[in-house]
């Protein structure tokens, strides 16, 4: 990794590490750390989705369902069966992985609108089950008093502690995903997106790779769910409905599907827009939210971050004129 490429990464890590301290003194934005905790949790979901949708080209409107499976698995295992949260987390991830595999095998044979509809249908079914199985999930009135999380005996309570815990998970997921992308597996995924028939002819087992990346995105979403459970200590099915799946897709698309940074920055941007900056519009909030999305989808289809990257790279070296 030459220095030039490494510098922006180091700068970003430094900024993120110092973020809670920079924000604390200013009253008006002192609560931004809380928003960043939620943004970090959502980043875990969108990093997996970015690999699945941006790189392998398979849309999924079910991420909120896997987010919910992880959340409720952790809540039930720790709340009702007294498991240690750190054991419940991988168990939830395993459950989400199994469900993702069962649904993924038939669903990922489909393409485009059909795949979107299949994942959407599955997501809504999970939401209905969470709503109806009242004895396990507390149903629509939710589950209360879910135990918190403690690291090495110390209960993670303050926002800053949660911030560092969540963003360590995000960093780990980013590094793991970055490595996957820059390996034969990553190249195979991108090949599937660009010319599926050719990838299959070159020996890439397309069907199984699609399911693998779908399971990977489900595992990340489940881990995010477990963190969310212990942070909010209260769950209602409405936090895992179709609208949240749509929001996760929008976060990846707005940020830019062709880069992991696009997913992360897009998520942070939309989390702040959704929870913070739009309050000034009050009743017009929904209208402005829709307007932003439409503008980005129409004017900057490749996403904000990728658009900025292109602007920067275009200054540095010119590309050969395309032949077709």
């Amino acid at each position, binding site marked *: 990794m030459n220095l030039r490429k490494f510098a922006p990464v180091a700068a970003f890590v430094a900024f993120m590490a110092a973020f809670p301290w920079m924000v604390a003194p200013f009253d008006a934005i002192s609560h931004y750390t809380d928003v960043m905790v939620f943004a970090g949790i959502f980043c875990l979901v969108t990093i997996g989705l970015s690999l699945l949708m941006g790189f392998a080209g398979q849309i999924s409107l079910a991420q909120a369902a896997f987010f919910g499976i992880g959340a409720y698995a952790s809540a039930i295992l720790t709340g009702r069966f007294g498991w240690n949260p750190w054991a419940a987390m991988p168990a939830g991830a395993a459950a989400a992985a199994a469900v993702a595999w069962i649904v993924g095998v038939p669903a990922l044979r489909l393409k485009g609108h059909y795949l979107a509809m299949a994942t959407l249908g599955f997501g809504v079914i999970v939401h209905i089950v969470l709503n109806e199985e009242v004895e396990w999930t507390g149903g629509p009135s939710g589950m209360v008093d879910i135990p918190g999380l403690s690291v090495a005996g110390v209960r993670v309570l303050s926002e800053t502690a949660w911030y560092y815990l969540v963003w360590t998970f995000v960093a780990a997921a980013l590094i793991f995903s970055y490595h996957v992308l820059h390996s034969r597996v990553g190249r195979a995924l991108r090949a599937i997106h660009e010319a599926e028939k050719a990838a*299959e002819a070159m020996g890439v087992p397309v069907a199984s790779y699609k399911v693998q990346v779908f399971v990977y995105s489900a595992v990340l979403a489940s881990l995010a769910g477990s963190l969310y459970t212990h942070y909010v200590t209260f769950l209602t099915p409405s936090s895992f409905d179709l609208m949240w799946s749509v929001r996760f897709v929008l976060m990846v698309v707005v940020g830019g599907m062709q880069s992991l940074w696009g997913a992360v920055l897009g998520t942070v941007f939309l989390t702040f827009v959704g929870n913070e900056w739009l309050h000034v519009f009050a009743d017009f909030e929904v209208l402005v939210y829709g307007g932003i999305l439409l503008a980005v989808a129409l004017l900057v289809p490749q996403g904000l971050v990728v658009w900025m990257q292109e602007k920067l790279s275009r200054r540095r070296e010119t590309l050969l004129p395309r032949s077709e």
Partner: protein
Amino acid sequence: MTSPRFSSSDPILILQDVHMQFGGVTALKGIRYQVPRGIVQSIIGPNGAGKTTLLNCISGVLHPTEGRISFLGRRVEREPPHRIAALGMSRTFQHVALFPQMSVLENVMVGRHVRTRSGFWAAGLRTRSMRREEAAIGRDARAWLDFVGLADAAHLPAGALPLGKQKILEIARALATDPALLLLDEPAGGLNTRETEELGELIGRIKERGTTVILVEHDMNLVMTISDRILVLYYGQPLASGVPDEIKENPEVIQAYLGDEWTPDEGAPIMNGQL
């Protein structure tokens, strides 16, 4: 970069009564043919004769409605393309199917996929064996780029190459899978004469390495100069097969190409590649 050894001199590919039906249309009617090892086998025939369909059946993109295909002694007519590729068969496509946004080098590296093993976890954790394998993939891919003469374009996006170079790149990618059998689907389509000559020379070098080549092509000049055997398809059926000289003189072949109004005594325009 050795192609997998195949024991005896058995034919590399055996087609038995291969039959292909799309709804009412019969694309291939009972084809029986054997391709010996190490030769350049061309398949020619007028448009719609079923050349590409046959290639798709052999490579697993399509499954024949009836009949058996055995490759290196193994039945493959029901196998998915990625498994056939693992057995040692690779191909190019009539309309170039590259990965446009990936670099030239990365396209060829995907070719190495079938010959390498590290999985999702190994990739994510960058285990030592994975890193060693990645280095090998890089070396092999560059070697194949040198072999086809595209080394200098390694870091350009594949989509940025002119058509001629894209065709060559697709061959390099196919070669990177260390195939025992290479299927080329109209590689000369859209090339000028100089590029076609280079292509012929490249196919010769591929043959020298012991790789069997099946060439579907319209450019008669190219076919006649580099083919060891030629199979002529006509409306989904084999019309004739043999060495280039026999095919040149074969009246039925000429008839098939020129349609009914030609009569044998007008000479064989096919000879000087006018088609």
